[in-house]
């Protein structure tokens, strides 16, 4: 199953300057794994050293933040769009 994934500008150097790429899979996790085979290095930018999605990135399925769905296990279907968007966050 093919799903569109929107890539933020700083990561487009890994995706051969593509802002939108196609991934395969039935969950966010599977789609991101499929992208790593096409675009090596993407995984390390998205996951921390404990294997969790990095805290400063928001992942959306269509317009829903997956943090408020089922996280990486959020199901996706053909025609859905995943967006990878850096969070606006910080602290003193």
């Amino acid at each position: 199953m093919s799903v569109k994934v929107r890539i933020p500008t700083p990561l487009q150097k890994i995706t051969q300057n593509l802002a939108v790429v196609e991934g395969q899979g039935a969950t966010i996790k599977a789609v991101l794994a499929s992208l790593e085979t096409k675009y090596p290095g993407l995984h390390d930018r998205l996951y921390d050293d404990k294997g969790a999605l990095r805290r400063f990135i928001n992942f959306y399925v269509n317009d829903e933040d997956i943090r408020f769905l089922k996280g990486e296990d959020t199901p996706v279907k053909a025609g859905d769009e995943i967006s990878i968007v850096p969070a606006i966050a910080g602290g003193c």
Partner: protein
Amino acid sequence: MSYMYRDLKINDYVLQQIFLQGEKAYPNEACGIIIGPKGYNAAVGVFPIKNIQDELHAKDPQKYTRTATTAYYMDPREFKIVEKECEDKEFEFKIFYHSHPDHGVYFSEEDRLMAAPWGEPAYPQVGHIVISVTKGKAIAASEFFWDPEAGDFIERKLLT
């Protein structure tokens, strides 16, 4: 350090709005977005955004170690709404702002890490305003904007 001219105009009303929000949120951090018309160096509209840091901390304290007194995390749902509003009305993001309760005006390591998560900013054209809210009163503000030559954020003082 290289010098880069920054001529974004931020009117007093806009600054006043974010000061009031910072004071209201005290002792927590406040945050939001300032927008302006595409192609113009003017920041004219303020969109306060909910700080969900406490929500994230409650859900996953290992990953989100800080609370809202020392951190902010813009609500991604509200962020999306403002982004869409901007696109529809030919506006664009000019500034992301947040407050430092009982801390000074500076761009912290955490601020830098979040603003440029892979070594370069995700929104290079958007400045960051930091305001200091000390004992409940907004007392100082600066903008920090990305200078690609320096590869760093440069401070422009707005109120000292």
